[in-house]
């Protein structure tokens, strides 16, 4: 009955039709256990090998440097704790940023409790780290640097390549981890060129199925598995592999890379249309993150002043528009987005933030629909808000 306009693609995406089709035979035809000797087992095993090859190729890695996990969160945990524990004898210092996804932050908080020393890089108003600050923080004890490629809330593209270059020049080995979940299939990644040792990918962000992630681990990296059970056929990650999921992930990557330029420029066009439309039609808005080429092609994030994001989200939902908010009201901890806080957005404005994240399936017509609905919703909520430009100036932190 009601239309759906899905603009929450940074959270998760629809599974592509071709991906589902690629998965099905591994559920009801080649459904054997990849460690089994018989035909159905061998086919499952070869599917894993083939999928690793596909994924590896997209980031200029080797197939046996890809380990499939159950999600990006697990891959991040694996990368950070796996390297931290395996290299503890060399040092206990880890550097990351203030705007990482919580799946990294929880891990570094955990490691801090265990005696690791964690430094969090500051970011500027657009969300960029400062490579000089990173350089100044490096010590002989530093074993790992983790910097995300693209920020998942505000779309900032971090200077990964410069970080890789800096670390390459150091005498001692400092492992470089990149969480590439928000950039994969949207911004080219070359683990050789960028000097990346560990890279996190996730299937459900690229029109693949939920239940699969991957960690690229450069050959020779000292790392410890974090799940300790019995190995099936993959090294370092125990348990029966999610074969159809892995096949679907690879298929999703294949499709995205076969049409990389087309999909990305489509998203970029919609992004710019949406940004312009909002700025032209709604007063008192604030775009978070950079503009143009330094911004992810799929990310739009605005604060609508004087109103609160959960209310906006739920109102838009009534019109079939699916978005996310960085408001405290929508978080389990009742705190506004740590990313917005890190770029200096005051909490009362952060509460009014809405992330619109695009996929290749969105259309111009959908953006028009949003640009029709959104101003009404914002106006309605502002009409019942006690806040005004003046009241906001008076109210303190």
């Amino acid at each position, binding site marked *: 009955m009601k239309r759906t306009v899905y603009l929450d693609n940074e959270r998760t995406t629809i599974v592509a039709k071709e991906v589902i089709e690629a998965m099905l035979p591994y559920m009801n035809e080649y459904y054997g256990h990849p460690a089994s000797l018989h035909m159905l087992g061998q086919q499952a095993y070869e599917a894993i090998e083939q999928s690793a090859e596909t994924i590896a190729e997209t980031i200029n890695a080797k197939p046996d440097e890809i380990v499939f996990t159950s999600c990006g969160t697990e891959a991040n945990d694996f990368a950070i704790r796996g390297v931290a524990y395996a290299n503890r004898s060399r040092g206990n210092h880890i550097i990351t940023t203030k705007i990482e996804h919580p799946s990294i932050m929880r891990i570094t908080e955990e490691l801090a409790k265990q005696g690791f020393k964690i430094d969090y890089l500051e970011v500027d108003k657009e969300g960029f780290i400062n490579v000089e600050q990173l350089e100044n923080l490096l010590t002989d004890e530093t074993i790992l640097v983790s910097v995300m490629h693209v920020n998942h809330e505000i779309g900032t593209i971090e200077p990964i390549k410069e970080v890789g270059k800096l670390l390459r020049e150091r005498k001692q080995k400092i492992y470089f981890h990149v969480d590439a979940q928000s950039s994969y299939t949207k911004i080219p990644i070359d683990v050789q060129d960028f000097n990346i040792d560990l890279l996190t990918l996730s299937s459900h962000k690229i029109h693949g199925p939920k239940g699969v992630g991957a960690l690229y681990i450069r050959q020779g990296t000292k790392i410890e598995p974090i799940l300790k059970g019995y190995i099936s056929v993959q090294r370092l990650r125990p348990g029966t592999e999610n074969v159809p999921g892995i096949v679907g992930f690879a298929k999703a990557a294949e499709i995205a890379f076969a049409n990389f330029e087309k999909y990305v420029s489509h998203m970029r066009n919609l992004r710019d249309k949406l940004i312009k439309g909002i700025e032209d039609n709604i007063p008192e808005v604030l775009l978070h993150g950079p503009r143009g080429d330094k911004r992810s092609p799929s990310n739009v994030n605005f604060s609508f002043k*004087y*109103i*609160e994001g*959960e*209310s906006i989200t*739920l*109102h838009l939902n*009534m019109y079939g528009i699916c978005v996310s908010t960085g*408001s*405290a*009201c*929508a978080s*389990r901890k*009742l705190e*506004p987005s740590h990313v917005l806080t890190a770029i200096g957005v*005051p*909490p*009362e404005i952060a*509460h009014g933030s809405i992330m619109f994240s695009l996929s290749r399936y969105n259309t111009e017509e959908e953006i028009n629909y949003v640009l029709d609905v959104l101003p009404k919703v914002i106006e309605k909520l502002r*009409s*019942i*808000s*006690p*806040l005004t430009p003046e009241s*906001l100036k008076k*109210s*303190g*932190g």
Partner: protein
Amino acid sequence: MPIKYSKKVLEYFMNPKNIGEMENPDVVVEEGNPVCGDMLRMYLKVRDGRIEDIKFLSFGCAANIATGSILTEMVKGKTLEEAKKVTMKDIAEKLEGLPPIKMHCAILAAKALHKAIEEYEKSKVKNNYAKPK
């Protein structure tokens, strides 16, 4: 656990009651703070010890708007003494439940009401003392 609202909350959220500014109220109070993401302004008009009119404005989430709506509905026409007895539990129950993490919205609404009544009573006392001619 994500936030899961009852149908009633969403109904009141989409069609809030008694919302808007009020001309010549007897009291206006604010409760909460935009910095925390939740704020309510409440207007009260009292006649003969009864709440003749009550309105509110909301900066906040769906629960904030819904609790404000249901509370104002519940107390409109009631005596101040009756209104004072309304608790956050009553509000939550009328809304067919609130997610635990959203109970603070019911508290906020109840607080605003109690503060408004208190201010009204204080002002009456003051007026009583001021007016003896």
